[in-house]
Structure formats: C-alpha cells, structure tokens
C-alpha cells in the first residue's frame, strides 16, 4: 500500500476512521480523555489559540478586500475556518458560521470518495464545492478549500465560504423557488479540483465565464477566497515552526475536545434539564409554479414537531419524530443543513466566546426521520436552492425553546427568538443592460426577538449571521435596477409584550431603469398563514410577513404632480399602497410564481418580527410613549394593545401617558379576559369535537395525516391526546 498523505504516512481515510472510532468508543473527541496539553500550560494554550484566530481573521479581511460582491463588502456573507486533516472544525472566523460544519463534511466526503488516491490531493491544490448533495445549505454558497501541507504531510485544511449572487440557476436567480429538479439549480462544483500550485485552472475560469451572467463577480470572490486561504496557510506554517508539528496536531484535537467539555458545562450552567417541545409548520405553494416536473404542482403543508431533551449530564437530543414527508420542492432540508443550522444558532446564543468548533456540536444528537422533509431518501434528484429556508424556521423556533430553559435558570437577559428571513428575488436586465439574477441581501432589516429583560433590537437580529447589516442604499442601487423608497420601521411588524420584539424594516422598491424583469421567489421562510413567530410568557406573536406587488402604477404621474408615493406599508387596514398609488395590486403567497414587472412598478415586502415577551398590559407606559415618539407604535397600538392612554404634548413635543386612565383601562381588560376564559377541559372538549367533525382545513388534515402515516409514535401521541380511535385520520375520521 502506498504511503498516505496524513500523519505518520497514514491515509486520510485511515485517520478519519480512527478518529470516528475513538470518539464513538469513548464519547470524547478522538479518544482524548483529558486535554493535557492545553490544561498543562494554559498560557501557551491561549497563545496558540489566539494565533489561530488571528490567522483566520486576517484571511477573512483579505477576502473582503478582493471580493466583487456587495454580499461580502456590505453584509459580510462569508466565513473562514480551519480543519483537521479529517475535516473536523478547529476554529472559525465570524460571518456565516452555518457552514463551519458543512465545509468539514465536504472534506470528509472527499476522503470517503477516495480523493487521496483517485483525484489526488497535493500542496497548492484548490477545490470548490457548492453541491448540497455533498454538504451545505444551497448552491449559492460556494466553498473554497485548500489543503495545508508541511513536509509532505497534510496537516490541516483551510476553507472559505462566500454566498454568490449568481450561480447560473434558473430564473429568477441564485435561489429559485420555481425549480424542483437538480438541473435547475445552476452551476455545480461537486468537490471539484479547480486548480493547482495556488492557481486556478484556465478551463475552470472559462467554464465560469461562459456559464454565468456575473462571471467577474464570481471569479473575484473566488480569487479573494483563494488568496485568503493561501494567507492562512502561510501563517499556519509559521505557527507550526514556532510551536512544533506535534503540538499543532495534538493541540488542534484537544481544542475540539476541550470545547466539547466547555459546551456541556455551559449547557449545565444555563439550562434546566427536561423535555421541551414545539412544532414548526412548513407551507409549500407549488401548484401555480411553472415547473416541468408535474408531480411537484401541488400546495401542501408539512408539520415538523421538535422535541429537545436536555439530559442532566449536559447532553442534548433534538428529536424530529413525526416530521412530515419530503416533497418535490426546493425546501427539503438535509442532515447537513440541520447540523449547519444548529451550528450558527449555537454560536450566537450559547457558544459565543470565540472557541466554537466541532466540539460545540458534539454534545448534541439530531434525530431526523428518514424519508422526512428534513432527511429525504436521496437528495440527488432534488432541487436544493432553499435548504436553509426550513432550517431557519426550525431553529428560529428552537431558540424560543432554549429561551425557556434559560428563563428557568434565571438567565432572562439571554433569552432570544428570531424570525425566519425572506425577500424578493428578481431576474432581468439591469440598469447597465445585462440580463442577470437580481438579489439584494440586507441582513439587517429584521427585528430581534424580545428578551426577558428588555425589548428586542429594532432591525437588529437575524439567525443567519451575527453581523446584521442593512448596507447602504447607494451601494445596493448600483447592483439593482430599483430605487429604495424607504427604510421605515413598521410598527405593525412588532411582537407586542411587556417587552416587545424589535420592529422590522420592509422593502419598498420602485423599479427603475429596468426592462424585461421578472420578480418571483420570496426567498426564505416557509411560513405563510400559520404564524411561527410566537411570543414568550404571554407575549404576542410578531407580525405576519407578506408581499405586495404593485403593477402598472401611476407613480410617474404622481411624482410629476408632487403627489405622495408609497414609502411604507402603513396601517394594515388602510395601507399606503391603497391610498398613495393607483396600481394593479397583487398579494401573492410567499412562493409566488414568476411575474413580469416594469419600470414604475413597486415591490413591498414585510418580513414580520419575532414574538414579544410577557403580557403587553404590563409594559411600562413610558416605554409605550417612547415608542410613540419614535414611530415604533401608533396611538391605536398604545391603546388597543398596551392599554395605555397617551396624548401628544405640543409644548414638550413628546407623548405623555395618562397613568390613571391607563390603570383603569388595564384593570377592565384583565376583567374581560377572565370573563372570556374557560377551563382547559372545556377547550379540549370543544376542539376534539371539531376534529371528529372534520372541521379542519384540508391542507392541515393532509399534513397531520402525513405525519401519522410517517410515524407510529406521532400517531399514537396525536390520537392519545385527543382520545381518538386507533384508526382515526384527520379529515377522514375513523
């Protein structure tokens, strides 16, 4: 047998097998029962870790300087990480950390597919991967991987991810919704070797140049990523020179094991053991999509129950038993995607101290039923453009479950909830006359969830990245053929409560200098009619996300006459687009079929917000008047939701609450609530009767039937809870 490129002449496959086996046998990463190197000399250990982090941060900055993408420069849709030879994450930069585990999975996929022998892995080789059937969240996220060799041995990998605006997918762009088959996903690099000696292959550059509308942006991003990886590699070599190769090998593994222990300690310190349960609805409206694979053309719902079991030893099981079955749409999750979702949630909520790596995930087990929408039997035939959409919905809700655990421990300031993201994609001719995907991706327009000690940040929280950023209008408009008509907070998006969630900022885009443009595919959240953004401890759900497309508007005439335009959504009952514009109004569901739009048409997207915390009647009146001053509440909300009577003081130029009237109103509201209340047993009896009478929406009935069909456990629990016959099926009866 030929000598391998790994440690002591072993192959990477041997190393991977051994690490997995030792981890499985001992429960400790790579069988490390005690991280002696790190604990024996904590100062040197800290020095070493800081050197790794500095290398990664320098690499990330290099990418930003070279990139051609506003995704990188304006909203930091990138990340970089260091991996063991067998693909386990050691350290990572900030950024879109969802990929930190996924990029390691690509390395392991390459090892498992015998790249070492059949493809060859040598110093200076460059690999790309954007194929979610290997790993990842969608093909728009492109991974650049570089092996690091020292004296002929592969000692580590460095990997960079950047999200791309164009990967050659079917219109409207990089994350099309009207695609259900893999061939429509765009250009794929399935862990492909694309260069050697630190240089890209010429034919690969040509493939990109002839395959993409935005080839220069793609290539500049790749070159930025490759330059960053090279920079990190050189720094790692210097670190090895200083610390020694044995230290490097050993310390990297110990960093993972140490982080596993840290994660367990954090969980034990901050949470209360037990079972935490919730359910995520996923809605798919595919009947009107222009797909060619006809079995995909149906509207349906899938339900995804989540059970989190925190064990006293700090181990956590996430069990999705009962999740509905997979379907022909681009919104099936994958095990890789579900682990990725857990990774980026953990780094913002529990493991944020800068030491996150594979060890942060090791105390977790994720159980994904085979054949479910979270674990299709074979991903290869499927479109994978939006794996991340259900993942974000699920982990946004999961944050609320963890918040419950934090609350019980008294960590109220750490409570957090999120709202799944969404936005419009377009395709068409831009203001420079080039046909291409058109996608703006500000991450900073989402309100953050309320905490147990205060309001959520207005436009300040999204699950996909900690570095929320709206970017600048003047930069986005250089890439998009529209004009931003406003970035006003939407008071009706808020999840009300004693502490409210942050308000979100809707998109208000006026098409400008564009010809032959289509708009479609609200990217992201798969929730449409069933609100997933529930509140905590009596807080109200956040606002509903929705889209309005105004076609054939009289915007130009109005502008010429100095009449008001649409700069915000406005009151739900009298929205601005009904009073300030004459237009053909379309309010499509969250997966609208492609629609042609033209100059002067207006696109409005309201993203909603997470839920509030606590009873709105307990909100401090001065917090309500402060919201009124800033336009984050209206008098109607103050009175109707919070029970606060307030008047504008013309002298002081601010809102002032009438405490006496407020107290009286609140007392009346509480009395009215008590009058409306009924015993749980009565509610149960009425609801059961409705189920038995088939009084359930057909799509919901089908969704429950699907989960019952898929899972005996789910079926037994459902029937048991409602006291239904053993052969009962929703919508059909016994």
């Amino acid at each position: 047998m030929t000598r391998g490129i790994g440690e002591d002449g072993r192959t990477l496959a041997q190393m991977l097998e051994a690490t997995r086996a030792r981890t499985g046998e001992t429960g400790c990463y790579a069988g490390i029962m005690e991280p002696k190197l790190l604990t024996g000399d904590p100062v040197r250990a800290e020095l070493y870790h800081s050197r790794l982090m500095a290398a990664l941060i320098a690499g990330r900055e290099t990418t930003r300087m070279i990139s051609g993408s506003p995704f990188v420069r304006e909203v930091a849709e990138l990340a970089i990480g260091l991996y063991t030879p067998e693909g386990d994450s050691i350290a990572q930069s900030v950024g879109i950390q969802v990929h930190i585990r996924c990029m390691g999975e690509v390395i392991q996929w390459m090892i498992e597919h015998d790249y070492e022998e059949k493809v060859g892995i040598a110093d200076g080789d460059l690999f790309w991967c954007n194929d979610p059937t290997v790993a990842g969240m969608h093909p728009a996220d492109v991974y650049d991987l570089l092996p690091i060799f020292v004296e002929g041995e592969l000692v580590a990998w460095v990997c960079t991810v950047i999200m791309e605006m164009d990967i050659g997918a079917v219109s409207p762009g990089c994350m099309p919704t009207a695609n259900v088959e893999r061939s429509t996903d765009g250009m794929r690099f399935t862990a492909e070797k694309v260069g050697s000696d630190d240089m890209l292959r010429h034919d690969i550059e040509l493939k990109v140049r002839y395959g993409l509308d935005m080839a220069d942006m793609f290539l500049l991003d790749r070159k930025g990523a490759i330059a960053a990886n090279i920079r990190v590699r050189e720094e790692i070599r210097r670190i090895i020179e200083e610390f020694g190769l044995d230290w490097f090998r050993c310390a990297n593994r110990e960093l993972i094991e140490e982080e596993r222990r840290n994660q367990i300690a954090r969980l034990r310190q901050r949470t209360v053991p037990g079972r935490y349960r919730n359910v995520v609805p996923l809605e798919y409206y595919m009947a009107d999509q222009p797909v060619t694979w006809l079995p995909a053309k149906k509207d349906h719902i899938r339900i995804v129950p989540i059970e989190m079991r925190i064990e006293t030893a700090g181990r956590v099981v996430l069990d999705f038993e009962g999740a509905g079955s997979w379907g022909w749409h681009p919104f099936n999750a994958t095990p890789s995607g579900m682990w990725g979702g857990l990774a980026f949630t953990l780094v913002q909520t529990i493991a944020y101290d800068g030491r996150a790596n594979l060890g942060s995930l090791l105390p977790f087990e994720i159980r994904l039923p085979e054949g479910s929408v979270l674990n299709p039997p074979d991903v290869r035939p499927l479109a994978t453009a939006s794996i991340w959409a259900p993942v974000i919905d699920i982990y946004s809700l999961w944050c609320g479950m963890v918040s419950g655990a934090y609350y019980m421990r008294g960590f109220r300031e750490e409570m957090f909830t999120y709202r799944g993201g969404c936005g419009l994609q377009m395709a068409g001719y831009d203001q420079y006359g080039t046909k291409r995907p058109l996608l703006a991706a500000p991450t900073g327009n989402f309100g953050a969830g309320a905490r147990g000690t205060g309001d959520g940040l207005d436009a300040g929280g999204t699950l996909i990245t900690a570095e929320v950023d709206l970017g600048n209008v003047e930069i986005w408009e250089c890439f998009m053929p529209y004009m931003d008509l406003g970035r006003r907070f939407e008071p009706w998006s808020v999840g009300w409560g004693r502490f409210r969630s942050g308000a979100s900022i809707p998109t208000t885009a006026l098409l400008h200098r564009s010809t032959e443009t289509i708009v479609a595919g609200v990217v992201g959240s798969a929730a449409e009619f069933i609100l997933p953004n529930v509140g905590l401890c009596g807080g109200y759900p956040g606002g509903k996300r929705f889209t309005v497309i105004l076609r054939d508007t009289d915007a130009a005439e109005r502008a010429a006459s100095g009449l008001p335009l649409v700069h915000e959504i406005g009151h739900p009952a009298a929205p601005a687009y009904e009073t300030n514009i004459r237009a053909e109004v379309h309010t499509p569901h969250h997966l609208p079929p492609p629609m042609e739009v033209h100059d002067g048409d207006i696109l409005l997207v309201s993203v909603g917000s997470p839920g509030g915390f606590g009873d709105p009647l307990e909100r401090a009146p001065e917090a309500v008047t402060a919201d009124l001053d800033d336009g984050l509440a209206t008098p109607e909300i103050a009175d109707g939701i919070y029970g606060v009577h307030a008047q504008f003081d013309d002298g002081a130029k601010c809102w002032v609450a009438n405490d006496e009237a407020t107290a009286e109103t609140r007392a009346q509201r509480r009395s009215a609530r008590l009058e409306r209340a009924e015993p749980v047993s009565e509610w149960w009896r009425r609801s059961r009767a409705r189920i038995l009478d088939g009084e359930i929406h057909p799509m919901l009935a089908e969704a429950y039937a699907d989960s019952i069909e898929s899972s005996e456990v789910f079926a037994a629990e459902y029937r048991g809870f409602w006291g239904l016959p053993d052969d009962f099926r929703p919508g059909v009866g016994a």
Partner: protein
Amino acid sequence: MGAVPQIISCDTGGTMTDVIAVDAAGRFVIGKAATTPSDQSEGYVEALEEATGGIRLDAVEACVYSGTAMLNALLTGTGRRVGAIVPRGEEDIFLHQRSRQTWAGYGYADVLHHAAHHRPEPLVPRRLVKGVSGRIDMFGAEAIPLYEDEVRSAVHSLVEEGVDAIAVCLLFSYMNPMHEQRVAEIAHDEIEAAQSSATLHLSHELIPITREQGRLNTLVLHAAAAEPCREQLARIEGALRERGYERSLQVVLSHGGVADIRYPRLHESTFSGPIGGLLGARYLAREVGADNWVCADMGGTSFDVGLLRGGEPILDREVTITRRIFNLPTLVMDTIGAGMGMYVTVDPITSRITLGPESAGADPGPVSYGGGNDIPTVMDCALVCGLLNPDNYLGGKVRLDTDAALDSLERHCAKPLDVDPHYVADGVLALVASRMREHIRTILSTRGFSPADHRLLAYGGAGPLLMAAYTEGLGFQGVATLPWAAAFSAFGAATVDLTHRYQKSTGVVIPDGAGDEWKAGMGHMVNAGWEELERQARADLEAEGLDWDEAVVQPLAYVRYGGQMEDLEIASPVPRVNGARDMDALTDVFEDLYGRIYAGVAKHPEAGYHILELGLTVTVAKAKPRLTRRPRGETAPAPAAVKGTRDVYHEGAWLAATIYDMERLAPGNAVAAPAVIEAATTTLFVPPGYRVEMDEWSLLWLRREGGR
C-alpha cells in the same frame, strides 16, 4: 529648555492634556494638566503654563492642536442642536443605524453574542429628522423631482423646533447635487423669513462621497460639533495671543494634515488625537532615514497600531469610531483592547484566563491604585512581577500598593487555576504581548507586508514596557522607543506640514481591451474631477492667507478592478491624464501595488479598471521641531544613571534587574539585560537575551544580544 519655544503643540486626551514646547534647537519641555471637557482652553492653558513657565510667546512660529474636542461635543450632547433633512422614507436612519452599529467596534465574542448587541444613542432624535420626496438615481439623473412644498414644511418645522443647524443629506447627491442645492435655496428663504440663525450644511459640499450612512453621520458631526469646537479653539488661540503669539492656531486633521482653525471642514479634525504619534513617527522616519515603520501606541485601555509605508501613513475613508460609521479620511490606527488597565479574570466555565474587554480606567484604576477596584488588571500583573516601580509611578505622584495587587491576583485568578500568582501575572503579560503581537502581524499580513521590511516604534506611557515581548519573533529590522514616549502624540502634532485633502466620487470605467480613444476620454473625466478639487483647494488656501505657488499638489485616484468592492489609493504618477499612455501609467501603479499586497491568483485585469473616487492633497511647508542629534559617547552609562537593582519575575524565574534612570542615559550608552529603564511617565523592560542602545537621536533601540 532654556530658550524661547518655536513650536507649541498639544494632545488633548480624554483624561490628560499634554502640551509640548519645542525650541529652535529641538529641545522641548512637556506640560501636563487634567483635560477640561466643557472648555478645553482651561486645561490647555494650565498645561501650557507648565510647559513654558509663563514666558512670552512672541517668537513662536506655530501652535498646533490635536485632541478630542469635536468628539466630546458630539458624544456628550454639548454640541449644537441639529435637525436633518433626508429622503422621504429614510427618516429612521438615525434609529436603524444601518443595523451595523449595533455591533460595530465589538470584539469577536461580543459580535457573536446577540444579547450583547445594542445601539448607540441616535445622533439626531427622530422628531428632528424630516423626509422630503425627490430622487437622484445612481447615474446622477433626476428620477423624481424634488417636492418643494415638503422642503418648505420640513425647514419650517425644524426652525420652529429651534434647531441650531440643519444637515441635508440626499441620496446620490455626490453624483448630482441639484436637489441638495435647491433644498438649500428654499431653506435659506425659510430661515431668513423666520429670523432664525440656524446654519445649513449640505452633504455634497462637505463629503461628496458614496455610502449615505457614514456621509450623514459625518455631516451631523460637522453640524453639531464644528462650530462649538471652533469656539473652544478660538479661546485657546485667544489665550495664546494674550501671551504674544501672533499667528493663527492650527489643528491636526484626521488624515494627517494641518489646517487653520477657520478651515471650513473642521470635522476632519475629529480623530486627530490618536494619530499624533503616527505623524511624529513619520517625521522621525524622515530624519532617521527609514521608510517603513510600525507605530505602536499602548495606553491604559487600548493598543493602537498604525503603519508608515514609504514614509507615509495609510488612510481609510470609511471608519468606525465610537461605534459609529463615518465617511472621513482617517489615518489607519487599528485598535484592540490591550491596555494596562484591562481586567484579568478566569472564566468560570472554561477555566481560561480572560483579558478585558473592560478596563479599570483612571477611576477606580488598577487594584494597586487603592481606588476601590478589587479586580486585578494587567498593570497589577506588571507591578507584581516587579517591572514597575511602586514609588516612581508618574514620577512618584501615585504610590502603588503591590500587596493589594498580589492579593487580588491570588484570589481572583491563581486560586481558581490552582497555580502560583506570579505564574499568572507573568502569563498575563505574555498573553497581552501575544495579543499585541498578533494584532501587529495581522495588520501587516492583511496588507501583504512583512515585519522584516519594517522598524517598530513603541510609544504611549505603557508602550516601552512590553515592547520586547510583543515584538519577539516578528523579525523587525529594528525596535525602538524614545524617552518622551508618553508625550509622543503631542510631539507628532508639531511635526506636520499644512496639508489639506479633498475627495469626490466619479465614474471612470476602463474595460479590458479599451482603446486609446476611450482611455483618453476617461482621462478627461479624471482631469475634470482633479480640477474641481484643485479649485476648492485654492479657495481654502487663499482664505487661510497661504500662497498657492508654495503648495505641493498630489492628485490621487482610487483604482479597483471592475466590479471590486474595495480600491487602492494611487498617487498619480502624472499631474493630469492626457491620453491613453498616462492612463496606462496610472493603472500600472495600481497593478504593481495590488500584486505586492495580494497573492498572484488574486489579479483580475480581465475585468478592466474602475475609478470611483478621486482625491487631491495640497501641502504647504511650515515650521517644525528639529530633532537634536548628539554624538555617541561611552557605551557604559554614567554611574548616575544607575538607580540600583530590583527583583523581577520573568518567564517563571526571579531575576535581579539593574534599574536605570532613562533621563540620564546618553547617546552611545548600552544597557545589558536584565534591566528596567525608568522615566517619570514610562518604563522600559529589557528581558534576558536583549540589550538597549541609545543612538544619536536619543532613540532607544532594543537589540537581540548577538544581533544588530
């Protein structure tokens, strides 16, 4: 000093005001006083009196100010009351703050930790922000006409609110200012009709560059703080004139220039304080004859690092300071939390030593100050290790309590880790030094530079203490500090020529394979931009009474590959782009610089070149301090320079270190390790393996034993 001062400069920090008076022979005296934020002239005068001894200033050729007056005015709300006019729909801009300001300026852990995010106070309250309809598009064309009634109503409402200033920032005004100009015309009428004294500030006039969030923040900074700051500076100038100074007071600008305090864009002086040292290093570099320097300033709360390349500092045009984004050309000083006041704790979960991020500051200060703080700091660690003299801190003004520092370190760190407190103290200093070292390495490596091509200058009160540790292994050409390290920023402010910088956006596109005619056409666009900036520069110099013919003019172009999001500043090799060959010369300079910074794979000329911003600097020479060069003497320091010995704990062992008086060392002296060289305001530790030599410029060079 003995003689009358020729130049007086100051650095007004958050805590202390330093004034340095330099005579014609280059000798100088430093005066220090507590900063008086409400009126900086008070603290200035006190420090001035200490530095000059109250003598007449008739012979002084230049007085230069650098400091934080503008920033203080903005952050403490003592500036003018500003209202803003923005595009309709964008009225929440000071509330949403691009979202980025909820975490901008944080360290790694706090960026990740969502619960730690919060917004700084809005620069302008929501009710003083008015939207007006109308739109210029990204090409500079009018897409929606300006709604003049809305403008009238907005101005009327702001005037009624009693604002002192109105800031007008409309989208793409740097491409076409017609709407901002019309807003100004209407506003002038409204303000006059209302007999208001509110002033108007237009973004295209003051900051004609892209990215509206930073442009508007900068505009508000100017509107709120420039005039109050100018008034304070005028009071300082008045105090100087009372003492016989006949010229005008000059102020250091963030980009390293200097201007008269009547300079219209006074906001450019906002971040002048931290860059003083960088400017001093630039001056020193010219005198000493070395081009590339790393300038490292360590104080109580932070470690700031700047670069000189080819003798010149590096400039950023969009900066985050005090967690806000500004479009303000500023010399790059990358900052990390690594100051002597930083707290040292042990994480209860990970059992890892944690440094900062908070600092004890001057109040309550380190444990050893006895000011009530019980959490050990980096300075307490240095004291416990014997590196600091408890009786000589600030010249003996503050007596440090070593026992209290040791006790605190024992309880908070050593016991939880089950180790010796001296091990922790020594380790903490190593950790801080490592953090500083990596910071330096990152700053160099992200720009593609190597320490082997640089010298390092350490300054700031705490700068010299760890300079051996934080430069260890980096391979600098040389590492130096100076006896006046603690006042080096003030010294730097005195060394600057009168320099103005101008910038504006443009839209030059040179596709791959562009013909000569196209390049020449684009050259016309470049020239038109430079000429516009030159007209502005001429007017400014004229207003300051300066002679244009004495000015050195350097046109700049910001070049990038087509589609790139970042660019590089290129000093044009030609005064005007007259034809394709000149344009090629400009892009050749870009290619050369780009190739030196990034790996070869990053080159992408097939995308062509874009120039989206132009710049211009004009420089007029002014009087500067002269560094004194003294001949080298004996290698052995004079006996009077030796103060005694002290035990210091270093790398796990106690060593007997010789203590020297820095002020008594002379050129040519060499100090062997282990040694501690003390001055009133700074301390230099010489660990085993090193020696220190003073050169003819009084620079103290740290050398490896056996090395150069």
